[in-house]
């Protein structure tokens, strides 16, 4: 925790406040990185976008549109001001539409995808982790740990393509290989098209949560207080769910949050694989088209999701650990 803001109030509200401030600071630094990466590089983005054959007039026009005139700090201030007020600029590709308009619908689609994937994977992986830990080194533990290890190792696009080959195109033909959703529809109306992308995300994320949950449970089950609970004559079920699980969840919360945030990045590839109309595929298109305003907006948005989830995880961890709660008082 940063010493710089330790003077802020004590207690849980003080803690949340500190974390929020820290999150905002992170976001500010994130914006500096995004700005630096997209605008302050020594190369001229306008020339890079338009190519060698561009006329001086068109270059100047684009520079103006990209807000590339004036001093660097001045550019940054102007750019940041736009961001804070919800003005992300205009897309360079989509006929100059405002970025907010280009992304609005796609944001909903992506959120839908991520939420479903999260809702499936979190309970599933917690259960898997607890079950594996309960019969440690048993056949279920061995099988599931190897499977989780392999799944965690595979890049999402490999999982995605493998699922397409298995269920979409080559082996079976059960499910659509692409998830095209017409702009006027909601993803809710095309649930069948969502199965493969959701499955890919679940397979990409669950192994991590399941493994941390298992590791955490194993440690807790080896602890003195679990042994003590058994030596007090507590029934095994009571030992497992009342004594062990509450203590094992705390370390897993951080990983769950991290993985939900990771889902926000994972959708980039998954949406591209399935042609799903969300912000991930929008980002890939924008990068291909060098549509810098869209890239900037999405990068900061995704980072914002990460910061928010981390914040929630920190607070949740505090709430489930009496010890940490007291130390804040």
């Amino acid at each position, binding site marked *: 925790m940063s010493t710089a803001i330790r003077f802020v109030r004590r207690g849980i509200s003080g803690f949340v406040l500190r974390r929020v401030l820290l999150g905002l600071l992170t976001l500010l630094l994130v914006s500096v990185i995004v700005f630096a990466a997209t605008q302050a590089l020594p190369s001229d983005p306008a020339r890079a976008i338009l190519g060698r054959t561009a006329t001086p007039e068109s270059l100047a026009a684009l520079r103006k549109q990209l807000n590339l005139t004036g001093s660097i700090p001045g550019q940054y201030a102007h750019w940041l001001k736009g961001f804070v007020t919800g003005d992300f600029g205009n897309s360079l590709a989509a006929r100059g539409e405002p970025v907010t308009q280009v992304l609005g619908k796609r944001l909903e689609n992506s959120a839908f995808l991520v939420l479903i994937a999260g809702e499936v994977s979190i309970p599933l992986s917690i259960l898997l982790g607890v079950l594996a830990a309960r019969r440690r080194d048993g056949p279920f533990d061995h099988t599931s740990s190897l499977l989780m290890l392999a799944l965690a190792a595979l890049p999402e696009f490999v999982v995605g393509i493998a699922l397409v080959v298995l269920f979409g195109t080559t082996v079976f033909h059960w499910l659509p290989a692409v998830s095209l959703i017409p702009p006027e529809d909601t993803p809710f109306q095309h649930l069948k098209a969502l199965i493969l992308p959701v499955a890919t995300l679940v397979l990409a994320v669950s192994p991590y949560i399941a493994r941390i949950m298992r590791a955490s449970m194993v440690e807790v089950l080896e602890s003195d207080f679990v042994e003590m609970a058994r*030596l007090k004559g507590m029934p095994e079920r009571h030992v497992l769910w009342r004594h062990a699980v509450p*203590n094992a969840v705390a370390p897993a919360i951080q990983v769950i949050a991290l993985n939900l945030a990771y889902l926000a990045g994972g959708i980039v590839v998954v949406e591209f694989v399935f042609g799903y109309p969300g912000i991930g595929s929008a980002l890939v298109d924008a990068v291909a088209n060098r549509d810098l305003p869209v890239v900037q907006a999405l990068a900061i948005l995704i980072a914002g999701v990460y910061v928010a989830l981390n914040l929630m995880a920190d607070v949740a961890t505090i709430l489930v650990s*009496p010890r940490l709660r007291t130390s804040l008082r």
Partner: protein
Amino acid sequence: MSVLEVENLRIEIEGTGIDIVDEISFHIEAGEVLGLVGESGSGKTTVGLSLLGHQRRGAKIVAGQVRVDGKDILERSPAQLRALRGGTVSYVPQDPSAALNPALRIGRQLEEVLAAHRFGSSHEERLREMLEEVLLPTERSFLRRYPHQLSGGQQQRVGLAMAFACRPRVIVLDEPTTGLDVTTQAHVLATVRMLCRAHGVAALYVSHDLAVVAALADRVAVMYAGRIVEIGRERDLFLASAHPYARRLVEAIPEISGEHELVGIPGTAPRPGHRPTGCFFAPRCDYAVDICREQFPPRERVAERREVRCHRWQEVLAEAVHDRPLAAVRTNGASADALISIRNLQAAHGERPVLFDIDLDVAPRQCVALVGESGSGKTTLARCIAGLHRNFTGELALRGIPLRPGARNRSRDTRRDIQYVFQSPYSSLNPRKTIGQIIGQPLRLFFDLPRRDQHARIVHALERVQLTSSVVDRYPHELSGGERQRVAIARALVSEPALLVCDEVTSALDVSVQAAIVDLIAELQREMELGLLFVTHNLALIRTIAQEVAVMSAGRIVEHGPVDRVLDQPEAEYTKRLLADTPSLESALAIAE
């Protein structure tokens, strides 16, 4: 019929056929406390847990009986075992801070024992009673606390309350006072004794600390390498043990009177799977003859309720116990000029002050003991001197030259002159370096020596601490705790210092090893004419090694003077209380008389 009878118990490492403990037999009457003593790795906790039909991962009870009121518990089903645990047989753990669930309130944890065993009708009333019995506050607010909101002593009392909750027949206490300060320890022990007597509970008290056991137990069983080597009444065992190991163990215990020399036991106890044929103690035993190396000694009855496993117990018993050598006369070779002098030193951890107005001198060739309980600030003071704790003000001078805080700010010669030996040799030696590299480090930093001379000096340093030069290429994990501490001492001495600071150097070691290390340090101090600051919490050690003692409490030196004077006629209240509360064999036996 005894409440508890253990018969020929054998516990193996699961799936290997290698025994951890074997041929364990003893019994305990109602209201009796049996002390089970042994050094680390002797299997005493393993035996303790088996009384609840429980074994830790990797261990398995393969033979024998554990009978409670005549019924063998090892034949019980898991459900019957659950009913037994916490009900008929209960357990008090070693480390209460780890054994209480950090996520549950104290009240819940106490009540669930009653609920699980359907004990009594009114839980609320019984909870009150339980808290009263162990002298804990009975307010409701106390029950709503979480374990981390209690002191170490309170946590252990909660553990006791839990164990006595359902009026058990048998209770297993597994070193329940480790880590508590002596005063708290004395109170907890008194509570245990009172409760066992009052409720007629048969208690097994597992401990490595013979003095504590002497103060509490009616009878004592001594374990060595997975076997009970001697069992008998506490007085017989401590005053005239019939087993050479038990005898040497008693001799290795430091005594406050300091009359006798501390004698360690050379060598280490054999691990399971590496135990010799014949008597396991034979390789370390002065009495060993051929038969000891060939045949495992049978259980022999020495007297009523007293048994021993030794081929030569009659010879051992015939020898008078107090042939133990008297301590050498400690000459005070100190000269007038202080080697290190401390005046008006104040130190803090961050914002929190921990040391106040410290004045202390150590003269050349003098040993000053710094005694205090954990948290008294004694280690911080030692670390200030060694340049490891920088946050202090006041005067600190070596041979009259002021020392700056922080080793890096001091000259090379100063750093060489003051050497520090840390508490735990498990932490003070880099596990990734060979012993040669570890001892070579100060040589490289302080002396510009050609490689060949370096090697010679390393070998010499090793010999000085009674290690062979063959360890030069070994890694720390290949050595025992005592050997590692010898290496740490060798590292300190290889730079030929003027002052040696020893910080609790024996507290991580077993009793038999501790004695040998203290002996070694005392001898080296005389030989090398070192000034020595010996920091310890163990009052009984200081008479063996020091000429002067400073007693610390809450960051201040409360009493300071010659060792004999301070120990025999303490002036400060704190010193008196410390002396009274420190368990010792002598006082325990004196009371028993």
